[in-house]
């Protein structure tokens, strides 16, 4: 009957439309799945695996609800308002995870990359909550999100100024901040605070369970070690009196479903916090870069270097998500380091799970009992979870740093950055004499360490570009010598093998085609320059320009015409270089081949 089938057809068409939007575009290059993964990025696991994986990711993400909890408690909010902030927090996290999992468009890294509330925002948010309460935290977090969005637009070009070792340093220091936050939570916010026996017993038991399951359990319990440790922590809290029957009965009396409200959300701004929050936006972008890079290495067997397009989209999505989180009145978030660990541990990296994670987070946001369990989380349980994740994040930072050859320049950049962090943490009054405008920059350990590392990196780039040149006689060409020239110099510069191979082919192919088809007058000149992130090879010759088509010639063109053969050469050169250009006329031609390193 038309009246019944029409709506059904409409629903089908809507679902089909949604399905087509979430499907992988046909022109997408599928990454080769590493043997360590059970389900690759673009694979669709069985439904059971999808939902169990989603639940685990939400479990990991939930641990980091401690950050908005810390800020809300710092603001002195009553339990119902804290619960409302956590509900909105789950919705913000759902939006962030969905943005990163989008299969097309300019937003998101296109990965299963859930977001978490982060220690990156902790220090400036604590400052903001003291100066102007939660509205100032939310207003300045919007500003940090916008800074990250702006940075994402030029992120690829900033790569030489924000090298991986600096991103690794930021990840390490964020881990350190989380660890310090754990101590702050359990020592009750005071430099002379002593650990109470109750707190010590609860935190010790929770931490011991987490560590034991992680180290000695070879089965699935290892994947849930943090959650199980927290459950044990709640139980021990009940035994030592940190949780009461009243707390439990309050949980059981909550409604089944509750919707959060935006009625208490407002935003204010303070110019004195612009610099620390701008650096926070930068640190969040660096953190996202490190996380997305780790995902790329994990999910692509043929990975050789960071895909800056995916990273820039990820940073863009991260900035938008942080802005949305602040508009909803929650707290700053970033793409999760902890969830990368979960993907690595389980071998399940399917992007489609990101949508299931989003759905579970939205359902969790509407569950007052679940939110209630989080709001009554005892401080030592919170501290144990933070401390446990902190050490893994710190070591992730060390691993990112150690992927680089640590010469004197990089050692100084990382070492001085770390010392700045430790210095301001141990001697917080060291820069009290600094000008007022500079105070926000030099009093936050993370902000100062980031600025010191990036500034030194910029300074030490002076004199880094190196250049060599050679001449090739078209009548007595020596391909072995050209090969040795490239290999020898690129080897001295520490260029990667895959980049050396591409340069060698592109240069040899260019010279081969020039000699065969362009009738060069005099020697062909080859200049190669290197500056750590870029290698440029310039081939100059007296003769007509070559053609570098964007489409390959047909089989018949290659076989039957000289032009077809030459176009194949030009097409291959264009494909091998990351960027290329040709200038000149019939007298003098310059072919510039650009390789990202």
């Amino acid at each position: 009957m038309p009246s019944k089938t029409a709506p059904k057809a409409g629903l089908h068409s809507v679902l089909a439309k949604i399905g087509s939007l979430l499907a992988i575009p046909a022109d997408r290059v599928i990454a080769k799945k590493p043997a360590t993964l059970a389900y690759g990025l673009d694979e669709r696991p069985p439904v059971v695996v999808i939902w169990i994986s989603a639940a685990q990711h939400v479990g990991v993400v939930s641990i980091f609800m401690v950050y908005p909890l810390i800020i809300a408690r710092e603001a002195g909010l009553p339990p119902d308002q804290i619960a409302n902030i956590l509900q909105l927090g789950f919705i913000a996290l759902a939006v962030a995870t969905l943005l990163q999992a989008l299969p097309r468009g300019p937003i998101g890294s296109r990965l299963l990359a859930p977001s978490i509330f982060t220690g990156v925002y902790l220090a400036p948010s604590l400052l903001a909550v003291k100066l102007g309460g939660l509205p100032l935290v939310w207003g300045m977090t919007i500003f940090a999100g916008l800074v990250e969005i702006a940075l994402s637009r030029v992120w690829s070009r900033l790569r030489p100024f924000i090298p991986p070792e600096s991103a690794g340093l930021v990840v390490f220091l964020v881990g350190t901040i989380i660890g310090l936050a754990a101590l702050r939570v359990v020592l009750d916010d005071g430099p002379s605070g002593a650990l109470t026996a109750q707190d010590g017993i609860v935190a010790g038991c929770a931490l011991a369970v987490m560590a034991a399951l992680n180290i000695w359990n070879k089965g699935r319990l290892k994947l849930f070690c943090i959650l199980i440790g927290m459950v044990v922590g709640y139980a021990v809290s009940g035994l030592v009196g940190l949780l009461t029957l009243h707390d439990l009965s309050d949980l059981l009396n909550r409604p089944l479903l509750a919707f959060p409200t935006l009625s208490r959300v407002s935003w204010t701004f303070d110019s004195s916090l612009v610099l620390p929050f701008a650096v926070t936006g930068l640190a969040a972008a660096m953190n996202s870069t490190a996380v997305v890079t780790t995902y790329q290495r994990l999910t692509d067997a043929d990975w050789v270097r960071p895909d800056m397009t995916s990273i820039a989209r990820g940073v863009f999505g991260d900035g938008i998500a942080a802005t949305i989180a602040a508009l909803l009145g929650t707290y700053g978030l970033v793409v999760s380091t902890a969830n990368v660990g979960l993907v690595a541990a389980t071998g399940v990296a399917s992007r489609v799970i990101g949508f299931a994670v989003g759905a579970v987070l939205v359902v969790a946001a509407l569950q007052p009992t679940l939110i209630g369990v989080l709001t009554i989380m005892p401080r030592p349980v919170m501290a144990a979870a933070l401390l446990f994740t902190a050490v893994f994040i710190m070591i992730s930072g060390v691993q990112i740093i150690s992927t680089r050859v640590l010469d004197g320049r990089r050692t100084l950049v990382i070492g001085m950055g770390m010392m700045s962090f430790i210095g301001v943490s141990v001697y917080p009054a060291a820069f009290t004499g600094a000008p007022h405008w500079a105070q926000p920059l030099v009093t936050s350990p993370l902000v100062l360490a980031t600025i010191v590392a990036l500034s030194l990196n910029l300074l030490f780039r002076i004199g880094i570009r190196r250049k060599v040149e050679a001449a090739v006689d078209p009548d007595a060409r020596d391909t072995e010598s050209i090969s040795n020239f490239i290999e020898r110099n690129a080897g001295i510069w520490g260029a990667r093998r895959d980049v050396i191979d591409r340069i060698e082919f592109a240069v040899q192919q260019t010279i081969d085609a020039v000699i065969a088809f362009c009738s060069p007058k005099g020697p062909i000149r080859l200049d190669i320059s290197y500056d750590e992130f870029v290698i440029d090879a310039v081939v100059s010759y007296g003769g007509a320009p070559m053609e570098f088509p964007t489409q390959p010639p047909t089989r018949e063109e290659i076989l039957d015409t000289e032009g077809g053969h030459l176009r194949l050469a030009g097409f291959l050169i264009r494909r091998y270089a990351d960027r290329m250009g040709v200038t000149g006329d019939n007298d003098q031609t310059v072919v510039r081949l650009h390789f990202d390193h």
Partner: protein
Amino acid sequence: MNSNSVLSMEEIREAGVCIVALAGRIDSTNANDVTTRLTNLISSGEKSIVVDLGAVLYLTSAAFRALLVATDAADRSAAKFALCSLARNVRQLFEMGGLLELFTIHPSRQEALAARG
């Protein structure tokens, strides 16, 4: 042939198949030698040829053209013509040039011989 280009060609007969093993670099200085060698084999009546590229360091567009000319000659003579044992970087060149589908390519010499049999 330019002595610097260091291309070597070796013919081996195995299970009724003529295997031509190429080694070194193939570019415009020596691609004609490859064309001549392969087309001579075909015109002399050879009905099954496998070109082993396992020891080829790199090749340029001139080499692709030489292999295409040989493939074309084999088609016209109803001879079987295939490539085998492409090194990773050489296979990448075929992929980048969109040339994989223009040739019959086997992962190894053994698989090429098995396919011929």
